[in-house]
């Protein structure tokens, strides 16, 4: 069932509109505090927005607009919510936790338990059915919580960072469970992890400062980001420029000749994205006085030391230096560096919206 929703929560700076197509999983990708949880809370009915409305298929989910105040309680919505922390009821066994939604709808205990066992099987947690929540590991708890959320048979399943509290191994197991659970299901998956988003979601909506800054099929959004924030999350460099015959002219006048991902008109605003592997920092000794082709000169904005490399952010690009280079050049934040873009690894495409200053 197609979900369409918009909501404003002034106190949290949330002002967002989104659509989830029937049977697809939408990743709500954003940093902590970007408003993902608030938006899910509004949909689930646990956070009342200042205004907004939502519909599920043809039915109204809520409507808080001038002249209308439809705001059903959480239990009256066909929506499930799975949080970062499993929140299993501590006084119930895993099986009875999963049986809870059916019991709440009036099913008999044996029926509810029979169904619960099926749901536990679906998340590969059958053997845990007799366990108490405090006997379960984080990953086991989260699998039981997934089964419980599914047992409510919601039309839309909301998942709020369900992997964030788990260690690497548990996260992997739960991710696999989610991958099978989310297939064919209409769901929204809030995450700050672009890997989770790319593995689990059909579509991505990128959230930044309470707004959805871009949305589209996962592959498109991550491969051709429109927003610097998206590029950063995807680990890609992103610079804006003007379309030329063979590529892009950057603001400092440098030309990059590279693959054109669409047929945007010459002279129109375009974006260039490139992976760190295709960007190289030019040694100071080799630097030219004026902008050369395929180069960008900009001050260093951030540095990150990795095990075998030094990652540099400058002018919207990301480049990796090996440790030998890092030692001889020793760049610091604010130092102006020149970076060479390998045109083979770069893509230029139309700029859909004007970029806000980041």
């Amino acid at each position: 069932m197609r979900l369409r929703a918009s909501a404003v929560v002034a106190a949290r700076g949330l002002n967002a509109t989104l659509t989830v197509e029937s049977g697809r999983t939408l990743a709500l990708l954003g940093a902590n505090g970007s408003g993902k949880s608030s938006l899910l809370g509004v949909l689930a009915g646990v956070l009342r927005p200042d205004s907004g409305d939502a519909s599920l298929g043809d039915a109204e989910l809520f409507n808080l607009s001038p002249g209308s105040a439809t705001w059903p309680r959480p239990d009256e919505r066909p929506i499930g919510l799975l949080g970062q922390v499993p929140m299993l009821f501590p006084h119930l066994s895993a099986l009875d936790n999963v049986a809870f939604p059916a019991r709440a709808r009036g099913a008999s205990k044996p029926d509810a338990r029979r169904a619960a066992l099926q749901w536990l099987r679906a998340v590969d947690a059958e053997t845990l059915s007799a366990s108490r929540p405090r006997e379960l590991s984080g990953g086991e708890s989260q699998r039981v919580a997934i089964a419980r959320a599914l047992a409510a048979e919601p039309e839309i399943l909301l998942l709020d960072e369900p992997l964030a509290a788990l260690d690497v191994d548990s996260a992997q197991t739960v991710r696999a469970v989610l991958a099978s659970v989310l297939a064919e299901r209409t769901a929204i998956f809030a995450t700050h992890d672009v890997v989770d988003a790319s593995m689990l979601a059909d579509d991505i909506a990128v959230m930044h400062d309470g707004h959805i800054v871009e949305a589209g099929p996962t592959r498109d959004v991550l491969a051709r980001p429109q927003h610097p924030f998206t590029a950063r999350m995807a680990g890609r460099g992103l610079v804006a420029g003007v379309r030329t015959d063979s590529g892009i002219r950057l603001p400092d006048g440098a030309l990059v000749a590279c693959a054109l991902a669409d047929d945007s008109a010459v002279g129109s605003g375009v974006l260039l994205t490139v992976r760190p592997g295709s960007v190289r920092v030019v040694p100071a000794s080799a630097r030219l006085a004026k902008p050369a082709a395929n180069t960008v000169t900009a001050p260093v904005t951030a540095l990150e030391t990795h095990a075998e490399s030094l990652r540099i952010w400058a002018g919207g690009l990301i480049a990796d230096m090996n440790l030998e280079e890092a030692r001889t050049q020793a760049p610091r934040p604010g130092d102006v560096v020149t970076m060479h873009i390998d045109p083979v690894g770069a893509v230029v495409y139309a700029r859909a919206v004007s970029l806000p200053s980041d």
Partner: protein
Amino acid sequence: MTLMPDVKARVTGRRTSPARVAGYVPGWVLPIAILGALLVLVPLVAMGTRVDWANFGTLVSSPSALAAVGLSLRTSLAATVWCVLLGVPMAIVLARMDFPFKALARTLVLVPLVLPPVVGGLALLYAFGRRGLLGGAFSFLGIDIAFSTTAVVLAQTFVALPFMVLTLESALRAQGAAYEGVAATLGARRGYAFRTVTLPLMWPALVAGTVLCFARALGEFGATITFAGSLEGVTRTVPLEIYLQREVDPDAAVALSLLLIIIALVIVGFAYRRPSGRSER
């Protein structure tokens, strides 16, 4: 996982055993705790030395003593039931709802704790007595609680109720409403969530509050003697019987006091047999 035990307990819902947290207790705590325990224990032991053990059985099984014990158990039980029926909703309203003058309301609920019981008895008299605020309405309805067992239960409920409200409210506030929120997103109506989630989770606090209420009702003296009077089998509970016996037969008074303590200990011990009651297994 390198979480502190209590943090981890919060995340996973596991309980921490005292053995794992004893290491955080500062050294000066234990001696002072022992000092405090002595303050309570020494008078109890001293009383034990004054008990006429040879005649203990006779003293506590006299008809008037038996009548007082029976009455005390009946009235305290009834008062405890009222405390549960009234105190649970009060605690929930205070812990979970917002309304004007809430801080004032919470303070007023606790007034019987600080009020000297005799004054509490006077207040009840002014409210429910034959010439009290509601006395006229009561006598119009043909209800006369003056000098009745009902008056004893009323006095005991009045003094015991704050213990229930206080215990439950702090437990409910510490617990938060997150589990109820989860229950709602799983389709549970509010009533169902209350029965199946809120109630089981606050069970330990409910048991503690119930025990406190019963103990307070059992020991209640001042409000009862002021408000309900003192008649064997009707309004003379064990504390009133002790007070009366003290005039003529201190041995009987001491023996009865000891009986009261034993009753209280048995009940407290029973209620706290397992610290977490139902939620275990």
